[in-house]
Structures are given as C-alpha cells and as structure tokens.
C-alpha cells in the first residue's frame, strides 16, 4: 500500500515539476496562455505610484505625552496617512503604534458632539444637548458667583493637559489655589527628587547621552513620556556596543532587549543603589573632582545635635554656604573658585560651632555595614556578587572608559577647560521608582550615585533637556497663601517649598488647599495632589467646594486608583438630597467614564482639530541639544459642535473679567482665542508661550517681543522650533558659563549663577527641624513623627508604606502595572486598532 502511495506521490511530484519548470517567467515571458489559463483574467496591473493625498500638514501627535512631530496626509478632506516627521527633534520620523492609530481616534464613534447638560441622576448618563451659548452662560454664572465670594470654592484640576501654562495661569487669575494637573499622581516623586537635587529630573527633564553612553542603567521604565526617543536611543546604544542594564522586576519590553536584566524585588531599588554606593565608596571609585566642583559635597553642615541649626549648612553673612579651605585652614564661601575644599574632617567654625562637609555624613551613612551588598542582597532578591559586579562595571565604565571630547568650554568661574571629560554611565528612571511610596528617596539615591561617579550632564552620562537645569529648586514657592474675592493669587498655584515658611497652611496647621498639597501632610508636593481632589471635595475636608472643574482627566476611571469608590463619591448626596460635590464641569473630547458624572460637559475637539502649544513654560520637548517647542495646528475642521478647550478657557476668562484675560476696558484680551493668546500673551516681558520666532521680525529666539507672524513661521517650519546649542554649551550645563549666560538670554533662567548639585538636601532638614520642635511653624502632632522620620536630608530606604501594612509572609507576591506600548491610559479603549493589537485595558 505504501508502495502505491509513494508511486502516486511520485507521479504528483513529477507532474508538478513539469508544470513548475516551464519557460523563464520574466515579466513578458508568460504572455502566451492556454485557454484555461486565460480564465484567470489579465495579470494584475499594480499601481505603484498612487497619489497619497492632496495635501500634507505637519503638526504634533497627541496620542500620548511624548509629543512627536507628525506629517498628516489628507485626501478629500480626510486623513489618508499619518507618519512621523523626519525633521522633528523628538521622533526623527518614527511613529509609535499609538501615533499610527491617530486616524482611528479621529473617526472614533465615541467623540462628543455637542455640549451636554445632565438631566438624570449623576452616573446615569442622561443628558440633553444644549447650545454653546447656554453652556457658557451656565459656567460663567456658576464660576462668577464663586469668584465674587470665595474663589477657593473652585477646584480646577486638569489631567493629561499639555497647556498647563495656560490652565495654571487661569487658576491664578481666578484666584483659586486649588489647581493641579496630572503630575501629582504621575511622577512627582521623581520630578521633585530631581529638581531638589540637580535642578532637573529624569521624568521629562532629562535624557541619557545616547551617543556616548557606554553603560546605561534604566530603573523601572516601561514606556515613559519619552516613548519614541527611548526606543531610538536604545537602538543607538546597541549599535554602539554599550551595555544596557534594565532594573525592573518585569522582563518584557525594554528589559527583554537589555544586556542584563536585574529583576529585583519591587520597592527595593533604594537598597540596591545604596549597596552600589557602598561598594564604590569602599573602593574609592568616586569622582572627587566632580564632587568638589559641582556639588555641595564640600559644604559644611553644622553639627549641633538638638540645636535649631543642626544639620543646616554653615553660611557666611551673605547666606553663602561655607566650605573648609585646606589651603588657608579656614572656612570660606563655597562659591569661591580659589579654595581647596575638604571632603572629610570635623572643623571648628569661627563662631565655635562644629561642622563637617556633607560628603562625610554621606560616606559615614553608606559605608555602614547595613548597606554592604552582602547585607541587602537578599532583601533585593539579588546576590551580593552580582551587586558588586555591577558596581565594578559602573566604576569601569566611568573611570576606565572616560570620554574625552576635544571641546573647550568655560566653567561658571570663567575658567577655560580644553576638554570635556565625561563619565559614560547614564541612568534613567520612571514610575517603577517614582510610584512607590519610598520613591522620592530612592530617586535621590540614584542622583547621589550619579553625582558620586561624576555622571551628571557630562559626555556619556545623563543630560538635562532644555530649559533645564533650573536653579535648585526649580521655581518660586506656591502661590495661594491668601485668597480673596475677585483677586488673583500672588503667584502660580504650583511651586516649590524651601522650608516650613513656604507651606500653604493655616496657623493651626490645616491645609489651605483642597488637595492638601504643600501642607504638613505633603510639604514638597511640587505638582499638587490631584488624586485627592475628588475625595476631599466629597469629604469637605479641609473645606467643601462648590464647583469641581476638570479637564482631560478620566478621574472616574484612572487616576483615583479606586474606581468604584470614586464613582460613589461623585454621586454621593447629603441627607437633603443635594450632591456632596455640588457642581461638576468636565471637558473631554470623548464619551469617557468621567463624562457620565458631570453636570455640564464641554466637548473638546480632537488633537487634529485645534491649536495647541507645547511650551517651554510647561513641560519641555527640548533635548540635551537645546530648547525646542512646538504647536498643534488644526488640520481638519470639526464636523461637530465642539470647541477647543483652551478657547473656552480664554472666553470664560474674559466673561469672568479675569485680569489676565481682559483689557482695562473690560473687553476680551484675546478675542482670537488660543492662537491669539499663544502669539500675544507675555508671562514676563519678552517671554511668551512660544520661544521660537520672537521679536517683531521673528528673528529673536527665546525672549523677544510678540511676533504677529509667529504661527505662520512655525507652520513653515513644520510646526516646531528648535535651537541647537553651540558645542561648548552642550555639557556641564549646571556649571557652564557659556550655557548659563545663553540660557539667561533665552529667558530659560533668570540668573547665570552656577547651579550646585545638592547631594545633601537642606530643605528636608528644615522640615525635620520643625518637626523636632524648632521654629515658629511646626507640624500638628499627628504629622510630627512622620515628618521627623522621613525628612532626611540624605536618602534613606524604608519598606514601601503599603507593604508595611501587611505581613509579607502572607502576601509574598507583588502585583505590578506596566504601560502597554500600544495603549495610552484610558484614551484608547475606543480605538479599534489599538484595542485589538494590544491588551484591552490600559495601565490602570
């Protein structure tokens, strides 16, 4: 039987071979066909050069926060194809999966079509469509009443907002301190740690030197705000043969392509970093020159246990911190360039107090046996040998492979250096660090490690993205110490506290802000605490508000971390039947979950239908190579009765008579809407939302008079502006005179002083001293112990707070979330392509 089968198979093969090996089939060779073959019809004529579209418009993607440049091909008024803009500094032509699905976002059936007024119960989804006139009138009535009586009864919170410089300014003009954007629940631990330590941060304020790094350690990053740049960068690193280490409990995404995956136990990065520091200190694998020149390692810290000055820097009469000059054997202003500062030793100050360089405190702490690799390895889920090897590799890359660029530059003191010497060890981190409750200190620990090996803004290391570095910390204290009817705040609602005196608290310590940011509960909360807004508004704690106004924040779903609870709070009523949160206004472009809980819905356009401004005043798209900003321009006309939210804010501002939005005579200041504001608004003289093409002729970068033709200039430049820094300003920006002067000229910083990196974080010690009973402003008893414990000026490690509450033996496993690369939060659940290509749900 097998024989028959074989024979038949053989015959078949023969038949096929005969058929297959016919005359060479070059294109024309098979022209003659038998009658049966003719049934196939004529060969297909492939149109290889179809017209792609009738128009190309450049704008900026908004399928996530990365802000890539896109090239939109339009055909018959519809989108044919969206591709990356090759010239754009962020994405250089590539486009991620989300960006590529923009077309489906535009045609999503979930788009809102008209303003909505709630008719049923909250959450029922029953609305009636109303005209914009009525919607604006309602909003103006509700908000006008509040402003006339008590502006802080407006809580204005925005989510994935890319116009925070407008929305924050609006809140300030309105006079409510109750403003924050998504940063507070996003990566504020990281942003604050960075801004208080080095005047920049991982988050969106810095990037690895992809071109020169030899060793790259990435802590807890899945997608990041630098989605495309990280991918572009990693492929560069790999092509250069550098080593990429991914520190992450999870081994997908970037970890999968890493040379070494360090799958440590969640929440233990701080310990791991301390062990690295321990090993490096032991072996003197430390860049002392870097420490002495660029950090506060040599600043003298007063040693007066129990005293009100204990742990603070010793300062001269001008407030300049002192260092111990070994040449003169005396304390001297640390700002002097001619001293030879000590890094260790106990010194007697002129006033008799004792002081030690902050490095000594640091070294004493981390050289301690409790931080030896052998001591922490098990807790981290690693071996001591591995930690020591990684330390050795870091040391090797930093010191044996130092990068020397033949690039002269001038330092802060005016001294010329012939070369730029870099430590090619780059680090980056994100929510894997930041989102843990010990994230602030862990992140500081990483920055300390970077400083110890001299790897901050040097060739091959982590670099600032313009407009960073900023002075430390990154800006003025938060506004809102006082609020009054019809009065703007004294400053922007979000800012940086330097000590108890900057807190927004009443005399008895109660918070002044609804979200309790900048109170003793969260003294440093540099981005506000948006995730507390709904809860506190519901609980009336610290006080009830009248209107909760939200924009682009799917709070009912995402950011609250407690979906069911949040929905309940949004719908909860007083015994008299009124809602606990009296009025909710919400703006979204899509029928997201949050829409159902609003009383008044202001439908926004899609990102392809409006003007937008990606401003240096907000979060930057600048890179280490120089500042950059961008616009979004409408590439399509809305086919629905929707309005860009920023237009609505500017209109509301004018209707409410807010100073920043009206002229002396009460007429609207920006009748042309957001595009008018983008061009003509000035935050400070010469500084506006866009830094490019300023000055009346459009020739001045950074700081200059408004330019009527600015938007046209942007459009002609493919919707972005970018300034490449000269090579001598490219590194050591914290201490580079050329750069600092240039940055002042561009309006990115106010003064060209050296930005000294803060190994030792004095503001934390100030809060701690208050908790220990010093000074006029002290925490209420319930916060005292917490502040004393956690406000340590040198990084500490503690078990994540949520873990402390459980028995680890009972719950030995951690559940982690990680952003899928092809999904952005809750935005894309209604995008047919993304929902299919990737996991159904977003990170949350």
């Amino acid at each position, binding site marked *: 039987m097998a024989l028959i089968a074989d024979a038949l198979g053989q015959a078949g093969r023969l038949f096929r071979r005969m058929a297959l090996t016919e005359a060479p089939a070059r294109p024309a060779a098979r022209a003659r066909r038998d009658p049966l073959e003719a049934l196939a019809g004529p060969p297909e004529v492939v149109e290889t050069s179809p017209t792609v579209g009738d128009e190309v418009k450049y704008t900026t993607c908004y399928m996530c926060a990365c802000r890539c440049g896109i090239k939109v091909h339009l055909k018959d008024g519809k989108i044919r194809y969206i591709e990356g803009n090759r010239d754009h500094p962020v994405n250089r032509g590539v486009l991620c999966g989300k960006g*590529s699905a923009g077309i489906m976002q535009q045609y999503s059936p979930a788009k809102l079509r008209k303003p909505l007024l709630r008719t049923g119960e909250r959450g029922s989804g029953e609305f009636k469509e109303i005209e914009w006139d009525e919607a604006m009138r309602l909003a103006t009535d509700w908000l006008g009443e509040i402003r006339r009586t008590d502006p802080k009864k407006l809580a204005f919170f925005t989510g994935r907002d890319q116009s925070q410089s407008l929305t924050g300014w609006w809140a300030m003009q309105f006079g409510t301190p109750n403003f924050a954007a998504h940063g507070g629940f996003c990566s504020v631990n990281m942003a604050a740690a960075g801004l208080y330590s080095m005047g920049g941060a991982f988050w969106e304020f810095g990037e690895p030197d992809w071109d020169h790094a030899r060793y790259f350690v990435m802590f807890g990053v899945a997608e990041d705000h630098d989605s495309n740049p990280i991918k572009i960068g990693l492929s560069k690193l790999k092509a250069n043969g550098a080593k990429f280490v991914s520190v992450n409990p999870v081994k997908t995404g970037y970890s999968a392509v890493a040379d070494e995956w360090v799958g440590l136990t969640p929440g233990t990065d701080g310990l791991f970093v301390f062990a690295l520091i321990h090993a490096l200190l032991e072996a003197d694998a430390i860049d002392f020159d870097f420490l002495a020149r660029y950090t506060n390692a040599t600043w003298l810290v007063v040693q007066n246990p129990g005293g009100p000055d204990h742990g603070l820097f010793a300062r001269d009469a001008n407030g300049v911190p002192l260092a111990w000059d070994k040449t003169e054997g005396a304390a001297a202003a640390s700002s002097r360039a001619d001293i030879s500062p000590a890094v260790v030793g106990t010194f007697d100050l002129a006033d008799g107090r004792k002081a030690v360089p902050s490095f000594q405190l640091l070294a004493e702490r981390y050289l301690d046996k409790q931080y030896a690799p052998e001591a922490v390895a098990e807790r981290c889920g690693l071996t001591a040998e591995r930690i020591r090897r990684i330390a050795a590799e870091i040391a090797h890359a930093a010191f044996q492979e130092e990068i020397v660029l033949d690039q002269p530059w001038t330092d802060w003191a005016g001294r010329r250096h012939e070369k730029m010497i870099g430590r090619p060890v780059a680090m980056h981190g994100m929510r894997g660090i930041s989102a843990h409750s010990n994230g602030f200190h862990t992140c500081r620990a990483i920055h300390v490690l970077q400083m110890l090996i001299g790897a901050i803004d040097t060739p091959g290391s982590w670099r600032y993205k313009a407009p960073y570095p900023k002075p430390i910390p990154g800006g003025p204290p938060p506004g809102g110490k006082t609020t009054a009817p019809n009065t703007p705040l004294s400053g922007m609602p979000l800012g940086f506290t330097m000590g108890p005196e900057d807190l927004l608290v009443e005399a008895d310590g109660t918070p002044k802000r609804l979200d309790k940011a900048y109170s003793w509960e969260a003294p440093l909360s540099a981005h506000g605490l948006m995730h507390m807004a709904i809860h506190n508004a519901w609980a009336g704690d610290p006080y009830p508000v009248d209107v909760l106004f939200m924009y682009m924040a799917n709070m009912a779903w995402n950011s609250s971390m407690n979906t069911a609870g949040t929905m309940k709070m949004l719908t909860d009523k007083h015994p008299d039947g009124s809602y606990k949160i009296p009025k909710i206004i919400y703006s979204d472009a899509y029928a997201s979950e949050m829409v159902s809980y609003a009383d008044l819905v202001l439908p926004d356009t899609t990102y392809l239908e409006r003007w937008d401004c990606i401003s240096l005043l907000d979060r930057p798209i600048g890179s280490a190579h120089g500042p950059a900003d961008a616009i979004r321009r409408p590439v399509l006309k809305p086919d629905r009765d929707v309005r860009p939210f920023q237009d609505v804010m500017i209109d509301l501002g004018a209707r409410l008579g807010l100073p920043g939005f009206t002229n002396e005579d009460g007429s609207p200041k920006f009748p042309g809407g957001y595009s008018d504001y983008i061009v003509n608004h000035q935050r400070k003289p010469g500084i506006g939302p866009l830094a490019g093409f300023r000055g009346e002729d459009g020739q001045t970068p950074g700081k200059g008079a408004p330019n009527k033709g600015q938007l046209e200039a942007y459009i002609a430049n493919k919707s972005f502006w970018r300034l490449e820094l000269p090579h001598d300003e490219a590194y050591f920006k914290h201490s580079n005179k050329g750069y600092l002067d240039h940055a002042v000229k561009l309006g990115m910083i106010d003064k060209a002083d050296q930005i000294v990196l803060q190994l030792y974080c004095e503001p934390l010690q100030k809060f701690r001293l208050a908790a220990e009973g010093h000074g006029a402003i002290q925490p209420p008893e319930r916060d005292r112990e917490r502040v004393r414990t956690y406000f340590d000026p040198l990084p500490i490690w503690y078990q994540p707070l949520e873990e402390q509450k459980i028995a680890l033996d009972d719950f030995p496993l951690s559940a982690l979330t990680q952003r899928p690369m092809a999904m952005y939060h809750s935005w894309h659940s209604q995008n047919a392509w993304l929902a299919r290509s990737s996991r159904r749900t977003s990170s949350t």
Partner: protein
Amino acid sequence: MTCLPAPFPGQKKLGLVIDLDTCVGCHACAVNCKEWNASGHSGPLSDFEAKSDGVWFNRVHTYEAGEGEASRTVHFPRSCLHCEEPACVTVCPTGASYKRAEDGIVLVNADTCIGCKLCSWACPYGAREFDEDDGVMKKCTLCVDKIYNENLPEEDRQPACVATCPASARHFGDLGDPNSKVSKLVAERGGYDLMPEMGYKPVNKYLPPRPKKTGASCGSKASEEFSLIDLAERRAAKDEIAVKTGAEPTLAKADGKGAAFLRWADRVLSR
C-alpha cells in the same frame, strides 16, 4: 499567475530583515502597516470601520526561550516573508496569488481571488488573513504602492513598518544583491530563515538576539580588566597607602570605615 517566475540572473528579491535583538515589541510596525494599507493596494482592511475582527498584515508576538536567568524574552514581528518558493502561490487555483518576477513581491489580486483560502493553508507563516467583508485573501504587499511611489520623496519610499519602527529593528532592501546593506547585515549578524525545513526559502530574514553582555565583563570597550576583584584590590591598595601615610588618626573609626576617611582627608581638591 501561480507558476513561479523562473529565476534569472540579477533578479531582485525585495524583503525585510527583522532584528530580534532590538525589537522592543511596541506594535508600531503593525499599526502603521494597518494605517498605510487600510487605504493602500489591498485596502480597505476590514476593521477600518470597526466592524469585523480585522485583517492585519503584521503581528507582533512575544516568546520566551530557555529557562531561568539564562532565558530570553524575544519580541517577534511576523508578516509575509515573500518566499522564493511559496506554495501559497502555486496552490492558488485562480492565479490571484502571484509572485512578481521583477522584485519577488508576493501579492494577491483582489479582483480575481475567489476566497478559497487554500493559499492561507499553504502558508507556514500565517501571513495571509481572509477578509470576511471582501471575501478575498489579504496579505502584506511589501508596501508595493509606497516603495516605488514617485509621489513620495525618495527617503519615504520604504515600507510603512520599516519607516516607523522606533527601534530601527526593521530593514528593507534587495536580498538578491549580495552587496546590498540588508544582505551584508544578514551576513554579519547571521540572519536566518524561519522553518527552513518547509523549503519555502523565505526572502525575509531574522537577525538573532545577540549574546548578552553578562558575567564578569562589563561589555563595554576594555571590558575584562575591571572586574569585581579589581574593586576589592583597588580598595586594599588604597587602604595601604592611606595607612602608610597615616593621616589624621582621629578619623579612623572602629568599624572599618576609617581607612577610607584617612585616604580622603588627604585629597587635594579644587573647586
């Protein structure tokens, strides 16, 4: 025509080279492919209007290979390999499935395909998906309407998936020309065929994940010298110097930190 074009000298074999070492599994290639092709040569693709479950020309899998610490997680995009001897073409009863002689691209003529699905059975790589809405078979076109498109600037004449890949894990070129960039890449990196045992001779090649830089070596330039032992030696040597020079004994602490402090006390630094 479902007869395969007979080989001739200098024949072009256009195809993709996919680098599994750098692919991060982001799906950009898959979605951008969808976007270009939804209104391209083989478009529309069925879920353009969010109807049926949708035809994709490109799918990104993730695999795990090996065990424990040594195991690898590998992202793996999969699309038509434009095989040199593809049975997906020869089984087709209508001639709708064909391989172009001029560049080797394997296409489906949507005007003559009867939707018998046999070609999808014949493809080992799952590169063909049936479009329920159109009743015909669809597959990767190698962006035939983009790579030659004279309405696009020269540098944009690349497949959508290649142009968009953020990690530069996808390369496009003529694998018939041994001197092309892609052929050299394949030679250098040991590019390989999927399921060679099928005998379809795929044109597309996959570049294997590179060996990891682990162990004592740091992997960067002069790796071996600075190992774990070096750190310890370095410390010992430094300690010795410090003890010899015997600086400020007050700094010496009982717990072993002392030696380090002794060394550092002597450092002469400038600001």
